[in-house]
């Protein structure tokens, strides 16, 4: 019997009755977990973000859309503290990312479009490293680790091999697990479905929904508009450095079907 068997399967994504009642409130009645005000960011002379404004609330699954090179990843990089910005303010879970970056970083889990785990470590070593950095207790680590491996159909034994031997999909699953180990309030995913098999994509969709239902925030960018239209509560389309369109798909369900057309029309007009 391994030491893990002492722990029961624990679902950090499960929703209690009280929480469900709290979640009945509409997004606007809740406080924003990610708040971006007047964000400006340039690369040399090229102004990519020109006063972008956005509030993302707790309990919602938010889709952030835009064509290639329009500033989606730049916005995310500013939110997660990976890039400096010239002007504006970003609050993550109430913490200013420039003045309180450490507190802000504790509140989110981030998954990059390309899996970025250390090739010299085994998958397990990598997760242990993440657990130590986020100060996760042994009990929480083992519970969450076991639960997430089961959800993402990742064989625990495979995690004892160096990540350099992993396929792209396996690395992505490992990074998904790493991002959720500390049960963050905000889950930020940049193109998370790249390289995942269809079963893993379906499971990820369910996990994102459950995570938002649990009162957390899920912030996702994807080129797969159908996926975003299907699962998100609200979506924003970024254009010319600002939010061009913002829809509440729960209040305007017909937008779910129209979203690909809206997206195409917006950029077609732009030429």
């Amino acid at each position, binding site marked *: 019997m391994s*030491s893990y068997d002492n722990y029961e399967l624990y679902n950090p994504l499960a929703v209690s009755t009280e929480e469900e009642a709290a979640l009945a409130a509409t997004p606007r009645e809740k406080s924003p977990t990610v708040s971006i005000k007047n964000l400006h960011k340039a690369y040399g002379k090229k102004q990519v973000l020109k006063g972008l404004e956005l509030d993302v609330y707790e309990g919602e699954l938010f889709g952030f859309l835009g064509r290639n090179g329009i500033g989606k990843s730049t916005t995310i990089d500013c939110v997660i503290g*990976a890039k*400096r910005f010239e002007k504006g303010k970003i609050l993550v879970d109430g913490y200013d990312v420039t003045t309180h970056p*450490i507190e802000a970083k504790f509140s989110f889990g981030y998954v990059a479009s*390309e899996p970025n785990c250390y090739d*010299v470590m085994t998958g*397990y070593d990598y997760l*242990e490293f993440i657990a130590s950095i986020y100060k*996760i207790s042994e009990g929480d680590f083992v519970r969450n680790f076991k639960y997430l491996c089961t959800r993402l159909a990742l064989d625990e034994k*495979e995690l004892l091999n160096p990540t350099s031997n992993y396929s792209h999909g396996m690395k992505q699953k490992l990074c998904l697990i790493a991002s959720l180990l500390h049960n963050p309030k905000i889950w930020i995913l940049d193109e998370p479905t790249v390289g995942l098999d269809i079963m893993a994509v379906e499971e990820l969709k369910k996990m994102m929904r459950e995570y938002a239902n649990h009162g957390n925030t899920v912030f996702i960018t994807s080129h797969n508009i159908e996926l975003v239209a299907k699962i998100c509560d609200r979506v924003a389309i970024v254009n010319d450095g600002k939010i061009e369109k913002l829809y509440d798909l729960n209040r305007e369900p017909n937008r779910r079907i129209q979203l690909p057309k809206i997206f195409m029309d917006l950029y077609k007009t732009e030429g």
Partner: protein
Amino acid sequence: MLNLIIKDFKLMFGGPKNAGKRLLSLLLKFLLLGGLIAAETFLFTAILDKIGHYKNAPRAFMVLFLLVVSAFMTVSAVFQAKKLFFDEGDIRQLATHPISNATQILSKLVFLFLVHFASSFLFVYPLFLAYGIMMGKTMMFYYLALFYPAAAFIFEAGIGLIFVYPLWYVLQYLKKHVLLEFAVSVVLLFLLSWVYSEVLTIFVGVVANNELMTLFSAESIAAIVDFEQYVVPINFLADVFIGGKRSMLMTYLAVAGGVFVLGLTVTIFTFHRVKNMSVDIKPAANKRVHKPLSVTLALVKKELSLITRNSDYVYSYSGLLVVQPLLLYLIIMAMNTIFSTGSFLYYTSLFPNFVSIIDVFVVMMFTVIISSGANQYISMEEKTIKNLKTMPVGFRKQIYIKLLIPVTLSTLSLLCSVIVLRASGVFSDVTAVFAFLISEALLLTFDLISLGEELQIRHQRPRSTFLSSAASYIIPAVYLVISLFLSYSGFDISALYIAGILFLLLIGIPYFLVLNSKMGKWFLDLEAIN
């Protein structure tokens, strides 16, 4: 086939993408090769001049030199064949194209032959020419030199092909066992140091005591002449190419051909095996239980993993750190012997404390050059730079831990080296203390400058190493020149050492202040590779 050969050429000699860097790298290789060939030719002709009148001696020395070239070419063939036949990326790429295994193997063999022939010719041609001139048959040996590398290829490549799979297998095994890999690298470096010390002893003897003639006594020459008969199959080749016994060609071909066929069979079999081998996933026997570490310890553990689990670091840095005390002892002892005897004594007497100043200079150079093997603090993160930026740990803590580990390891090695040099009587107390302090100050300055360069890598361009190179070469050189000048002017040695430390602090402290103030901006501007 031609395309495959061109692809292999790019794979083997691709090197840096930047045209300037490629040219520089080519120039350096050319200079190194030219130097080696010049040294070989000089040594061979000098020896021929000395032993020309002994019966059979020129031929015996020619065979000896051909044996050395052959040994070098065989080792080179093993590594070239490994790169050609067992490069995982290449195997993966070719697997998706409609190219038969036979074509792949044949193209690799042709490429191996071309590279082998060209390199072997460069070393063999001067030997044949020098030997031909001595024998008065220049033209004949000029033409024979064209065919010798091709004939030698059969045996040398045969041996190379026999050993290529075992080498690949051992390296793969070592990659999975870090401690064993480290132990093997240390043993190899100690062996190399031992060989180096033996060569150094001969060299020191030759320079300091003018012992050149003792190397070529009648007894030693007779031993070398006698030794020739055991050098199979090089002696068969010597019979064919030098002795003119063409009948021995068949004997050579029988031996070398057999070796080649055996090597080829082994390589074809193992090439198929490796090609079809799926990623070998062998789970470790025991699961572990997560023991939470403190943030600092977790970061230290991560940095140690990055340094020790990378084969390049194991051989270029960690291994050298272990042998640094021995290497320094060998070199400084040999240098001190040279500078304290013979005609050097007159020149060194002009500069009081000349030997101590040179000794400290050597310790500085060694410390900083070995340390340069581990100063890729940010580059070694590659795609994980984003992890650094998103983890909830202050950037200063992360960066200083990155700096602290190599600095600590290098300092420990430096301390051991100085203790060894003091305990063995090579250094006085004063020299030992100041050699440590000056080298440590240089090490810190160099590592800080390297860190600054690493933090300023942008647009995925290679790091600019101008300042760190200047710190590693120019600062010790400036120290040497100024110290010698002051020593000539009659300054006290302790004052010179203190001046050296102050000089380094004057560079290091302002740089540290600038680095510390700009670190946050530079860190955030680091580009994450997606």
